[in-house]
């Protein structure tokens, strides 16, 4: 479904077309304290032999190739000792209604060595996503979301930063770089702050939760989604493990 042009034009004319428009539920609630102090931490595991990640032909991008001494590969399934990274974990059920505080700190994603770092990033509706370029060459960031506004912007030089704000929750907004066909990243846009991305060691932590029973979902770009339930006490913590593959 294509956006209706009138809306876009009108919005632009009214001056609220900019990226700063509609910071959603977070607008007035930015200063509210977290709803609780409970946290969920856990681990994402990968069973069995991880599929090999494809090699990247960076021969025509010497500046990027120089940053990968051992031959660049595309970290689609990133497994270290059975721990799976780049899994987007978020609470999908059991939360009290908002508004939720929007972090004033921006989420960040960097383009370094012709790869997105991190490959998966979580951002709250209304929160700034800072996109930076550490490579001395052109990258463009093209996002064709379904719920949010499409954008396709460029960063021709190193050290540039562009800020984007998403206005609607969406799992996931795909990012790609048209200059380097292998460059993909995913941004999970959530209406609340209870999400995390598994690190290189497979671990994640969601904190600031009130007491309750929650349904949590884990998303991976090629391995699909899994979900689990967990209960935490006020100020307590609980653990949760997701297992992919095998």
């Amino acid at each position, binding site marked *: 479904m294509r956006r209706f042009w009138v809306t876009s034009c009108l919005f632009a004319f009214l001056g609220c077309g900019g990226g700063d428009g509609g910071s959603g539920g977070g607008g007035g609630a930015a200063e509210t304290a977290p709803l609780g102090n409970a946290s969920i931490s856990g681990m994402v595991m990968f069973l069995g032999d991880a599929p090999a990640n*494809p*090699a990247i*032909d960076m*021969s*025509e991008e010497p500046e990027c190739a120089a940053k990968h001494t051992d031959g660049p590969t595309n970290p689609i399934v990133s497994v270290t000792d059975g721990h799976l990274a780049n899994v987007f974990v978020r609470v999908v059920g059991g939360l009290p209604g908002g508004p939720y505080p929007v972090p004033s700190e921006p989420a960040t994603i960097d383009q370094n060595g012709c790869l997105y770092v991190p490959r998966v990033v979580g951002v709250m509706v209304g929160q700034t996503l800072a996109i930076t370029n550490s490579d001395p*060459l*052109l990258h*463009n960031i093209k996002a064709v979301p379904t719920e949010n506004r499409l954008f*396709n*912007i*460029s960063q021709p030089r190193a050290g540039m930063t562009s800020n984007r704000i998403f206005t609607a929750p969406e799992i996931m907004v795909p990012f790609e770089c*048209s*200059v*380097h*066909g292998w460059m993909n990243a995913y941004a999970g846009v959530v209406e609340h702050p209870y999400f995390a991305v598994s690190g290189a060691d497979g671990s994640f932590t969601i904190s600031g939760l009130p007491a309750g029973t929650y349904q949590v979902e884990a998303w991976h770009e090629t391995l699909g989604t899994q979900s689990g339930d967990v209960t935490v006490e006020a100020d307590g913590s609980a653990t949760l493990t997701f297992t992919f593959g095998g």
Partner: protein
Amino acid sequence: MSWILPPGASTFAGDIDFLYYVILVITGIAFVVVEVGLLVFAIKYRARPGRKAQYIEGSIKAEIIWTAVPAVTLVIIGLMSGGVWNHIKGRNSIPPNAIPYEVHVKQFEWNFTYRGPDGQLGTSDDFIVRNQLHIPVNRPVELQLIAEDVIHSFFVPAFRVKQDAVPGMDIRVWFEATKVGEYEIACAELCGLGHYRMRARVFVHSAEDYQQWLSDRAAAADEE
């Protein structure tokens, strides 16, 4: 500043450059005639007191001359161009012994598909090299340009080759490199914000080097 074309490195360069210089000479003569004429008239017939312009309304003879001369000249240029055009872009101009390549063109990359060891395109041992075209010298090559998103244009200045890659159209372009070396491929049709950097390189190898490169790459591709 120079009106001399940069050195060419394909069989087209001779024909195209020759035509270019023919047109350069003809237009150069016309240029000098008109500009010098204007200058001379401007000085010679400038207003002076007591002088009156001659009342001349025209001349059929002059009109015929300067209709016929340009018309004949232009038609001759047209006919000369026609042969070269047919040789380069004509329907059946692609030599039968041309090596086929598939080029998947997208914002903002050239993905060159090579025949694998079986010598056939479209089989599983084909392999793709990003932004690098390797070809043998003195052997025609045929590129099928497959645009995947918008219109791009395959341009190798040194080969005097340019051809738009249009999505949804079957477009083939051929050429034959005559000098071993490395040349740049540019995109010549505005294709978006990365258009200016849609650069690739073509490596012209001697026949032996080409075979060597091909088997090395095929082996590497096989390993993956």
